[in-house]
């Protein structure tokens, strides 16, 4: 009997609980508790991935040891696209629901996404020279990835130029949403256009075309970059929360700011 009476109440309190997590005040300490674990996990995964990729995995019969660049090139390239989609998602959510934390998440993702794009381009050039004989070609894959870097930088520059943080959020959201069209173009460019760039090494529909230790190393590095990206974004969003909410009572009462 009491069950029927309490059920709606727990449902309501649960919803309230999730809604509360969207407030910077609730999110700040939660992210703070998660961060040491995330940094530790990222370091462990990276060490394991580097050990497997650089020490255990055999050489490639076609590319020799230059193929080992894959262990950072592919994770960085995936993260560069994934983080842009995540940034556009949070920016759109902030634009539609007018939630401060969503927009702050978008702002926090941009610098790490730009770094991932830079790493993908840099390692791509260093891989292209020995395998294609050139550092750079203006083909679809490389050009659209370079455009991604400019989209990140444009987003950051536009946000930095606006005085009012809420106006910066809205302006940034427009760039993020317009630019998101570029992500599928990068992803499918190797299928749609002729290119020097090789197709995907890992595919959901067929067996991977690489030795199992190579694949293990690559997956470990992908997870390491993934966790690093999450940790860096959370670390940055915590600083952004402090910067934007420094006048509020709850920030003023934080023990770490005493």
């Amino acid at each position, binding site marked *: 009997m009491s069950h029927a009476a309490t059920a709606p109440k727990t449902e309501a309190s649960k919803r309230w609980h999730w809604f509360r997590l969207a407030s910077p005040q609730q999110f700040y300490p939660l992210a703070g508790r998660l961060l040491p674990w995330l940094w530790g996990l990222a370091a462990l995964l990276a060490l394991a991935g580097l050990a497997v990729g*650089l*020490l*255990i*995995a*055999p*050489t490639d019969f076609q590319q*020799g*040891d*230059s193929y*080992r*660049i894959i262990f*950072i*090139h592919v994770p*960085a390239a995936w993260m560069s696209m994934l983080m842009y989609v995540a940034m556009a998602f949070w920016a759109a959510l902030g634009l539609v629901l007018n939630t401060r934390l969503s927009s702050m998440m978008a702002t926090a993702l941009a*610098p*790490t996404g730009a*770094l991932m794009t*830079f*790493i993908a381009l*840099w*390692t791509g050039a*260093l*891989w292209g*020279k*020995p395998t294609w004989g050139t550092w750079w070609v203006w083909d679809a894959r490389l050009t659209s990835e370079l455009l991604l870097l400019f989209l990140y930088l444009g987003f950051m520059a536009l946000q930095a130029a606006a005085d009012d943080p809420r106006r910066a959020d809205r302006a940034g959201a427009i760039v993020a949403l317009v630019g998101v069209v570029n992500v599928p173009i990068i992803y499918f460019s190797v299928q749609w256009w002729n290119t020097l760039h090789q197709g995907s090494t890992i595919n959901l529909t067929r067996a991977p075309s690489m030795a199992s230790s190579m694949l293990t190393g690559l997956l470990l590095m992908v997870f390491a970059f993934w966790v*690093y990206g999450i940790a*860096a974004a959370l*670390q*940055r969003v*915590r*600083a952004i929360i*402090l*910067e934007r909410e*420094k*006048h509020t009572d709850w*920030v*003023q009462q*934080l023990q*770490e*700011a*005493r």
Partner: protein
Amino acid sequence: MYWNAWPDFWSMGGYGLYVWGSFAVTAIVLGAELMLLTQRRRQALAEVRNQRLLHADDSGEFNDPPP
């Protein structure tokens, strides 16, 4: 272990420049980001403290009691 000796490892079958150039720059870039993140947090906390001192007069929090 795939390698027989450390010199083989460092030369990466003749591709050392490209492989280590990739890994080193990645390490430098990510290390720099970690430093900047730590610095940004320190700066943000300092701003919070400044904000408190700036408004200490309004709240009376840091004022000495009148004699």
